[in-house]
């Protein structure tokens, strides 16, 4: 299982309905990209961080490991805003408002990423996918996504084992060997995926498979109190931003 999904399964908010967590987490993300980066995104960032590390109980180390992935892309992208191409100062020169634009972008992406991470770290994919049918996603697409999700872990495990076996046979000692091993890995993943699908099909056919995959979904109800509190928090953040925007320089 992947670290974020594993953390979601053992989260304090595991038993909450996904809608509760979507209103809060994705609401914070929407606020982060809609409000002015200063002070809006900064407020969202602090709030998301406080909720993640406080009530949601996400371990700091796990959060940092997940958070540094989007941060790498954001920093690389923000660096380009520091310079301008053309103009009187030469072909490439420092942009006048580059640092402020880059800073605002970093604030916005950081806050928005934390909002999504709040949802991801508290909602296992197995709770979310079956409920997408009620949200209007066609059942065959949800079924394909469910099979993809469950088979991904098996394939990732297989790939890890094959890579270890290749390394034990000196399959990564030279560049040519590395390419050969990688190609073997990709091809074996394909063969195993189709082999598992065929065996799953045989097994399901013996159990009267009619084309729909019925899975048990843990019972959960949308909490009116939690959702109302989330909406109140989001409204407060928006109002505070508008007030501070006028007050701050």
């Amino acid at each position: 299982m992947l670290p974020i999904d594993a953390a979601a399964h053992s989260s304090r908010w595991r038993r909450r309905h996904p809608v509760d967590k979507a209103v809060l987490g994705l609401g914070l993300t929407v606020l982060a990209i809609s409000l002015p980066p200063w002070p809006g995104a900064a407020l969202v960032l602090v709030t998301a961080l406080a909720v993640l590390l406080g009530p949601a109980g996400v371990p700091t180390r796990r959060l940092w490991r997940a958070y540094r992935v989007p941060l790498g892309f954001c920093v690389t992208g923000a660096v380009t805003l520091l310079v301008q191409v053309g103009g009187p100062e030469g072909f490439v020169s420092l942009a006048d408002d580059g640092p402020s634009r880059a800073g605002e972008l970093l604030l916005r992406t950081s806050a928005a990423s934390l909002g999504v991470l709040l949802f991801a770290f508290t909602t296992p994919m197995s709770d979310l996918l079956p409920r997408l049918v009620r949200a209007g996603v066609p059942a065959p697409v949800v079924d394909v996504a469910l099979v993809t999700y469950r088979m991904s872990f098996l394939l990732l495990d297989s790939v890890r084992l094959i890579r270890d076996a290749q390394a034990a046979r000196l399959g990564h000692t030279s560049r040519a060997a590395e390419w050969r091993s990688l190609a073997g890995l990709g091809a074996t993943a394909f063969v195993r995926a189709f082999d598992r699908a065929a065996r799953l099909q045989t097994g399901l056919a013996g159990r009267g498979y009619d084309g729909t995959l019925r899975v048990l979904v843990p019972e959960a109800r949308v909490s009116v109190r939690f959702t109302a509190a989330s909406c109140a928090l989001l409204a407060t953040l928006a109002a505070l931003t508008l007030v501070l925007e006028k007050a701050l320089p």
Partner: protein
Amino acid sequence: MHIAEGFLPPAHAVAWGIASAPFVVHGVRSLTREVREHPESTLLLGASGAFTFVLSALKLPSVTGSCSHPTGTGLGAILFRPPIMAVLGTITLLFQALLLAHGGLTTLGANVFSMAIVGPWAGYAVYKLLRRYDVPLMVAVFFGAFVADLSTYCVTSVQLALAFPDPSSGFLGALGKFGAIFAVTQIPLAVSEGLLTVLVMRLLVQSSKGELTRLGVLLAKKQSRSETEAVAR
């Protein structure tokens, strides 16, 4: 490399979502029809999605000595066709956003457009064009994967340049900046992905001829000379 969460302004995020929607809806309709006619396809399509997800998690040695991940869009489009790849790519990008923190939900439309629509369609078009002129299978596969990878990153650069035009030279200057970082540096990686795809396809022709025939990559009876040679090797 996916555009991270919150990187695009709201108007751009919505616009790319709207641009992607017709392709994804078309793919969903194709997939739904396929599953209704052949219920067992659910498992094969799920396996294909898992394969795409795992392929994008493999570490690819670059010819410059660095390391990256293949997009898998070229191989996916050749094996499963672009309409199906639009759906499988969307599912994969959703999983990557929620399980790996790669990409994002507000940027899902933009990432789907570059990685699940333009990449697969461009790669598949080049592959089919070359095959129509009897270019050997493996050469067509190389150029299909190369173009799919490179076009994905070119579109990402365009998306970023539209969102963040250069203060002095506008869109073109920004395209040069983002292209230099995300597209030009991707050329050696695109070559690497092309080579890897050829090696994978060679092994698949040897070991999974039945599946490739079922997917329509190989002809059931008549085989071109290069395929026969590949099988013989």
